[in-house]
């Protein structure tokens, strides 16, 4: 009834190839953006914004990054956290060298360093495939994590080895540092995520994205069709690491506000982001958001929701139960819908389209 393509005629190639071909989809996106821009900052509490929404946005961006590599190009990577770390540390170094440049610009630029490192560690992918590559990317994870601890230049020779996020402002409003309000940080995150998602959407719907999907489906066939594997795979590593790097810089500067970054960017974070991508749906941008929402909000919800429901559990026990529940949910989701939440979303839309006469 509400969601129907009947009566919506396409009169140009552009409208035929639109990312959101239906009017209802476009309205839906506008509503979501309006909620994100207006309702959440004004109605949500500081706690909700700072420990639910900001992590969700940052994880979504990282998941989009990994999804480009794993979902679109078919290269499994377990080094995501390390590439995020490269972004965080290069942002820190950049803001030390150029304290007058706007921090948002620096966050975007720091992704480029991450992209460079990503290309370097992506080189073996030309020869190694599948799980062998997954394990090979662990080399990046452990080497970079080691470098974050052992190269004192990266954290400005601090005694503590931690990143101290300085205060940076835009139009005299503090964006980072201790005095930045959760709302400001949320708006910065939201802006960056929306713009970068739009970029990602354009890339994966364009020539580059198609060559990635051809490589994913069968790389030899893609090569025979004239796609240069070297360029396609390294471009995937570069773009993916760029997104991860920006997410990492945002994580330290807009969410944590400093700290022992080497511990943050551990192997566990890499796995978490891989979960998000797979639970959300491989090769789907909206799936990255679903996956990030599921896995970043679920532990928080369990931690604070179960006591609210009257289940008497706290502290360490809650953490264990969370682990068990997350594990069980991952298995259940994989059994129910191996193609992820994005596929469920698609099925739901299809059902709506034919409702109430499904035949």
């Amino acid at each position, binding site marked *: 009834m509400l969601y129907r393509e009947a009566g919506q005629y396409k009169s140009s190639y552009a409208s035929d190839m639109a990312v959101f071909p239906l009017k209802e989809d476009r309205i839906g996106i506008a509503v979501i953006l309006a909620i994100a821009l207006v309702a959440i900052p004004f109605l949500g509490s500081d706690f909700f914004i700072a420990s639910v929404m900001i992590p969700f946005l940052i994880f979504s961006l990282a998941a989009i990054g990994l999804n480009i590599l794993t979902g679109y190009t078919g290269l499994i990577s377990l080094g995501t956290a390390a590439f995020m770390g490269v972004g965080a540390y290069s942002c820190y170094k950049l803001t030390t060298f150029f304290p007058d440049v706007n921090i948002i610009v620096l966050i975007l630029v720091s992704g480029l360093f991450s992209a460079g490192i990503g290309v370097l560690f992506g080189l073996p992918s030309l020869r190694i495939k599948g799980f062998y590559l997954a394990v090979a990317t662990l080399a990046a994870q452990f*080497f970079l994590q080691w470098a974050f601890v052992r190269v004192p230049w990266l954290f400005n020779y601090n005694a503590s080895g931690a990143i101290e996020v300085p205060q940076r402002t835009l139009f005299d409003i503090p964006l980072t540092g201790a005095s930045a309000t959760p709302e400001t940080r949320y708006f910065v995150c939201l802006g960056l995520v929306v713009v970068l998602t739009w970029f990602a959407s354009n890339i994966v719907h364009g020539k580059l994205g198609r060559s990635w999907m051809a490589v994913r489906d069968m790389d030899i066939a893609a090569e025979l069709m004239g796609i240069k594997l070297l360029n396609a795979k390294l471009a995937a590593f570069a773009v993916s690491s760029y997104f991860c790097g920006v997410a990492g810089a945002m994580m330290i500067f807009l969410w944590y506000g400093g700290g022992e970054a080497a511990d943050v960017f551990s192997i566990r974070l890499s796995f978490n982001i891989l979960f998000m991508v797979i639970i959300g749906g491989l090769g789907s941008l909206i799936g990255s958001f679903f996956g990030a929402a599921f896995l970043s909000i679920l532990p928080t919800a369990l931690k604070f929701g179960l006591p609210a429901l009257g289940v008497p559990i706290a502290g360490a026990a809650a953490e264990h139960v969370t682990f068990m529940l997350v*594990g069980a*949910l991952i298995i259940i989701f994989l059994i129910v819908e191996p193609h992820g939440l994005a596929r469920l979303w698609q099925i739901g839309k299809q059902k709506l389209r034919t409702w109430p006469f499904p035949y």
Partner: protein
Amino acid sequence: MSDIATRPAPNLLANPLVKAGLIVAAVIAALAIGVRLDPTNTLYAIFVDPFQQMVQAPDLLVQTVWEGLVSGVLYALIALGFVLIFKASGVFNFAQGIMVVFAALTLVGLYEKGVPAFLAVILTLGVMFALAVTIERVVLRPLVNQPDIILFMATFGITYFLIGFGESLFGGNPKQMIAEQLYLPKGAVDLQILGGLVSLQKIDIAAAVIASLMIAALAAFFQYTRIGRALRAVADSHKAALSVGISLNQIWVIVWFTAGIVALITGIMWGARSDVSFALEIVALKALPVLILGGFTSIPGAIVGGLIIGIGEKLGEFYWGPLIGGGIESWLAYFIALGFLLFRPQGLFGDKIIERI
């Protein structure tokens, strides 16, 4: 008939041995020149000094190699569990590391409840069997025929579940492995070799012996029993095995149970060396480079890979680590494996990857 003068001279350079020899000679010559010209002695420190140390203090070298050998055996044991499951069900079982922890914790936990040590071992085996049946029923059977990466993710789910389950049952604190009660030896043997004292922990010797025994037993099991034959058939081809009446479900239970036994033995050995805690799970990630080095499908590969990685990383840490700040053990293994992979993408002993369009 053929005139020897018209025959083309054999191209010496085409011979791979000659080529490799020339490359090695060129590298050595270049290094020799480099070391002479090098003002800051960096090249000297990297390429000459460590080897001098090795020659001057052979007892230290033996000690380092021995330590590498022992940790290599333990890596190989974890990798063995991976390979068993990968061969039989094509599942890249990420949960092997946590299965080691879980088995060791169950054993210690049962003993602390007052169960005699050897009865605890038997009960733990029972628990591992129950775990294998549960995993087969709950996880593998509904996911049959899914792509590899989905099954891989499912084992992540198992890992998370087991971490939470284990911690809520046994608590997160490190525990002492009941080595004495299981009659595992303690203390060290000091050997007088090459003008120095080399100290070998008895538990390490026991670990090496037990690991070899277990590998021999597994090989015999695969080679000479009915179930072993069925396992090999499943490893070759699921469909062909099904068509001659082998029950896949049963085989999977057996394989996961076997991996559980391997996990228990690994857990006992490793726990006896340090203690039993969830930190083992991170160490278990070290089994991954061992796997890619040896190939996912090869049991000898797991063992040889384990030894190469173990010895390689100990030597690297001891002789080259100080040059760049130490602690390189955490990633050296991956780079060693990566280096091998660039020449053999399927690992040293892995099945050749054949791709068709």
